[in-house]
């Protein structure tokens, strides 16, 4: 049974068609990878699913609810949460308060006291317990990503959209991240992850959706996708052209 369903989703900026009729599903409990060259529309898709952008065409349903034109906070409260490619913490709030925002206003809508308790637990879960009262500026990039993850989890996510949370990690850190993903899955969270690192996609994802120029060009298991001639062409092709057309994050 599918948790998230995107049907013919289209979105353009000015003259640029960022998404042109994207169609796919994510089943409950799955870990799905979303890949594609720079400018393929991955971040735009994440933004569209979470309500930051409104699509011109198509429909998005989450858990049976039509969410296509809902405000971002409504979608979040239904159980969709995300992280950002470049971590964007609330910089005047403490690490703990950052997570509290998610707990207090997400699907659970907790009181401040409960939010503080649960946020502390989540920080423990992502390994930031000792930084609870630090300011986000004091965190490393990896810690910031974990903070984003905790905030997203705090909002009661059943579907988690992870936007390139593995970029620039060392092998050891990658291993830790992978382990964290497994633990997330153990909590029953469905994951749609945008990723450039094929290594982790191949290792973690059950299914992969490939975008190019705003269109889905392939979908399937890691092995199927890796063998798809379209995908190979797209990847080799854009390496040369360079990533000039970055869709807005």
């Amino acid at each position, binding site marked *: 049974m599918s948790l998230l369903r995107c049907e013919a989703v289209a979105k353009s900026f000015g003259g640029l068609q960022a998404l042109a009729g994207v169609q796919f599903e994510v089943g409950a409990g799955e870990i799905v990878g979303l890949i594609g060259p720079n400018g393929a529309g991955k971040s735009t898709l994440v933004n569209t699913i*979470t309500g*930051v952008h409104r699509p011109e065409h198509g429909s998005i349903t989450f858990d049976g609810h039509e969410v296509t034109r809902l405000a971002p906070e409504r979608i979040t409260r239904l159980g969709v949460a995300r992280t950002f490619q470049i971590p964007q913490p609330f910089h005047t709030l403490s690490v703990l308060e950052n997570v509290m*925002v998610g707990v207090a*206003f997400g699907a659970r809508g907790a009181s401040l006291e409960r939010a*503080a308790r649960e946020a502390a637990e989540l920080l423990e879960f992502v390994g930031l317990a000792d930084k609870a009262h630090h*300011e986000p500026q004091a965190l490393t990039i990896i810690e910031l990503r974990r903070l984003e993850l905790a*905030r997203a989890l705090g909002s009661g996510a059943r579907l988690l959209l992870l936007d390139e949370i593995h970029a620039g990690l060392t092998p050891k850190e990658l291993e830790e991240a992978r382990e964290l993903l497994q633990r997330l899955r153990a909590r029953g969270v469905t994951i749609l992850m945008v990723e450039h690192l094929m290594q982790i996609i191949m290792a973690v994802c059950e299914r992969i959706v490939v975008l190019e120029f705003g269109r889905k060009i392939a979908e399937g298991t890691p092995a199927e996708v890796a063998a798809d001639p379209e995908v190979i062409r797209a990847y080799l092709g854009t390496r040369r052209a360079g990533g000039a057309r970055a869709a807005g994050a």
Partner: protein
Amino acid sequence: MSRAAAARVRRRRTLPVALAMLVAGGVVAALVREQFVLQVLTYVFIFAIYAQSWNIAAHSGQFSLGHATFLGLGAYASVLLAGRLGLPAAVAMFVGPLLPALAGLAIARLCLRLREWYFGMVTFGFTAIVQVLVVEPFGGLTNRWDGLDAAPLWAGGRAIETIAILNYLTALALMVGSYLLAARLMNSKSGLALAAIHDNEVVAAVSGVNVRTHRLMAMTLSGYVAGVAGALNSHTLTRHISPGIFGIEDSIWPLLYTIAGGLRIPEGPILGTLVVRVFWEWALRALGGFESLVVIGLALAVIVTTFPQGLYVLAARAAGWAGPRLARRAR
């Protein structure tokens, strides 16, 4: 460790600070016989309320450059209610500000998609527009540039000194009230949402915060509080209002006072207004003329370049009260 830390978040002591302000204000009233000092302090209290209203909007990231809209509308509405409908000033003072509250709501609604400079400039523009509206289409009601005399809050029959003390105490009480309101708000769940919106609206929204409602709420509340300050000012100190209130100056004061004291800290506007205003009066007195204003400007420049987090954080650090949270807020 983490649970203890979590518990600490909620512990911001506002009631003792409010009580302390009341006590200190009362002590000053009892000891100081100098009329002029009382008058200056009454001004400080009223403008601290006004600055607090700006601070509330700023806490949600809505940095208004045209707060005089609300100050002025509150004053006009209250003065007209008292003058034309014969409402007691004490009642009009709280009913009238519903108009600026509504204006705050309307402006916030129109400006939902705007932030930073865009928001600031549009709010500034509204002040200029409201001024023309007050003068032109509503000129019959508002007496155009002649302005209106405001009914006194504390009626005659009493000695002038008594009225001055009553004005002082009223302003003090309302200032403490506005402090409690702001402090409670900032420490509440809504306050957390406003802070999140201040930092990043998109992330706040995808964390489940209803950005729209909170922005509207903050500006409506801010408009109301600013309106009360405007009404209080005209019924106690100036006793006269004119469209000049919708000028640049009155939009600048709350910003100046709040930032000097400590942005997004409920104590900030109060300390800022007190210190800046008293210094201002002193400099005008001691030096006089253009030189005094140059010195005031230089002093303000030094304050902001050396203590960009404001005087409250400076004072709190000196007294050893400041946690990291306080420093973060003021950034």
